[in-house]
């Protein structure tokens, strides 16, 4: 209730500012005149009475200002004054102004840059269906503990075992990334692009369908045809976004591949390179089924050793958890499967373990903490810049403080020195009833 009345009086004070001013003036004037009349009645000459009344009242303007303070009007007033004062000093001090703009610009720029990375990497949800269900299965090797030599990849055999045995996952998919050079039919300059061989269920697992055409089908696999899905970017740059791209061949490493689909512009996957020999920077722009033969040798019908009992560890695994399945349950299950495989295939799997990581953590990975720390640092840097500026500013303006409170006190001090401080006494009314 008091809060409401306080707010109301404050609002009234702001809105009816001039009226309040004149009323306040009238009220104080009434006081002085009533006082003077009483003095006249007790025998003082009129002029003298008025003078004494004024003196005894004390600082007229000061009282008014304290009244405004009591109403909270001066907060807004003070802010405006500070603003005007600030603009004035900036105009008078072009050097300081330039410095201030530079320092603040750098501080704000650094904050914006770091925050945009933070947003993209840590805060923004991934553009897949129910991204919180997506995990990566990361293979660890106890022989290389403490060494960063493992890229977490696994063999096709182990992937098939996981997929067969695990029940905490809706589905598992694998991919393998490599660099390609691409030439289109029109004989343009070859361009090095990043591509990925994926299991056919990958797009369904991620919940993203091609913008044009279709995802890989079992039919594509059976015919071992060289089919490829393009990224939106590559489709735009190589085919000018034409619908005719579908069914067209593009030449990859000298071989024709038929375009069967185009992914939507926001689709990006995988993010990290899992291949050593062909490290090409940039995003994946082409997807092909694992079973197609990327090599020149037509006799090699199984380039990835998919059918051999002892596959080479080169695949990364993405898996979708069953809805509401906790990560720990999946981890526990995959641990027992890994233990079983270690007994079954001691030669290759004896030292292997598997970590289930959420996809967003996998992508942000070790960057998460440093990024948060970095954004804190740049924020502090901006604060530091502000403090630095404030001190420079007071130095530049010869010790005059910026805050309204200080200035007001200074104003009052000068005013006080002008008003006579001798205090008289009121006419004696104690005897009057």
């Amino acid at each position: 209730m008091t809060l409401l009345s306080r707010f109301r009086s404050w609002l009234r004070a702001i809105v009816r500012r001039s009226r309040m001013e004149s009323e306040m003036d009238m009220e104080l004037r009434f006081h002085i005149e009533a006082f003077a009349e009483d003095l006249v009645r007790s025998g003082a000459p009129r002029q003298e009475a008025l003078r004494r009344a004024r003196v005894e009242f004390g600082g007229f303007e000061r009282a008014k200002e304290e009244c405004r303070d009591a109403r909270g009007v001066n907060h807004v007033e003070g802010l405006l004054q500070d603003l005007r004062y600030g603009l004035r000093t900036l105009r008078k001090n072009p050097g300081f102004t330039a410095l201030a703009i530079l320092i603040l610009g750098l501080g704000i720029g650094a904050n914006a840059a770091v925050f945009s990375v933070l947003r993209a990497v840590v805060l923004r949800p991934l553009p897949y269906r129910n991204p919180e269900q997506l995990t990566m299965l990361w293979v660890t090797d106890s022989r290389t503990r403490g060494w960063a030599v493992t890229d977490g990849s696994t063999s096709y055999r182990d992937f098939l075992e996981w997929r067969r045995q695990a029940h905490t996952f809706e589905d598992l998919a694998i991919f393998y990334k490599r660099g390609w050079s691409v030439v289109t039919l029109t004989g343009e300059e070859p361009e090095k692009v990043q591509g990925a061989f994926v299991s056919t269920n990958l797009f369904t697992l991620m919940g993203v369908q091609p913008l044009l055409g279709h995802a890989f089908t079992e039919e594509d696999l059976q015919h071992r045809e060289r089919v490829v899905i393009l990224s939106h970017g590559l489709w735009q740059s190589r085919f000018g976004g034409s619908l005719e791209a579908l069914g067209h061949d593009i030449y990859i490493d000298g071989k024709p591949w038929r375009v069967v689909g185009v992914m939507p512009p926001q689709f990006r996957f995988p993010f990290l390179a899992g291949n050593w020999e062909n490290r090409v920077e940039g995003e994946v722009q082409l997807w092909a089924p694992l079973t197609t033969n990327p090599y020149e040798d037509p006799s090699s019908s199984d380039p990835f050793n998919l059918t051999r009992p002892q596959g080479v560890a080169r695949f990364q695994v993405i898996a979708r958890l069953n809805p509401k399945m906790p990560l720990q349950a999946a981890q526990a299950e995959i641990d027992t499967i890994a233990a079983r495989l270690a007994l079954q295939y001691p030669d290759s799997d004896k030292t292997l373990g598997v970590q289930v990581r959420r996809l967003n953590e996998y992508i942000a990975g070790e960057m998460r903490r440093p990024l948060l720390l970095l954004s804190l640092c740049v924020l502090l840097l901006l604060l530091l810049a502000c403090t630095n500026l404030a001190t420079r500013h007071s130095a530049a303006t010869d010790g005059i403080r910026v805050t309204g409170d200080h200035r007001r006190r200074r104003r009052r001090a000068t005013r006080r020195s002008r008003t006579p401080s001798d205090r008289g006494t009121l006419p004696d009314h104690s005897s009057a009833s």
Partner: protein
Amino acid sequence: MDKQLDVLQGTLDMLILKAVSLEPLHGYGILLRIQQISKGRLEIQQGSLYPALYRLEHQGWITSEWGESENNRKAKYYRLTAAGKRRLQSEAEKWNRMAEVIAGILHTTPEEV
């Protein structure tokens, strides 16, 4: 003992509330009323009265309206609100308790310790 006492810090609000609790008064009237009740033994700085009045009104303990003064002039009259009444009561109680304690301490003789 004839010397006037300065109003103690924090007690001015209480005195104003008391003065306007008896009848609606304008600022100058409040000053006179306090003087009268205290038989001239308290001195209030006139300039400090109005900031206190504005503060009390801002807090919702008194309210004001314009009226006619004794000599037919326009004057602003202050009146106690319900909240102000409660406030005055609690302030008075607090003050009495405090005065009692202080008086008790000051009247302590060596034998009582």
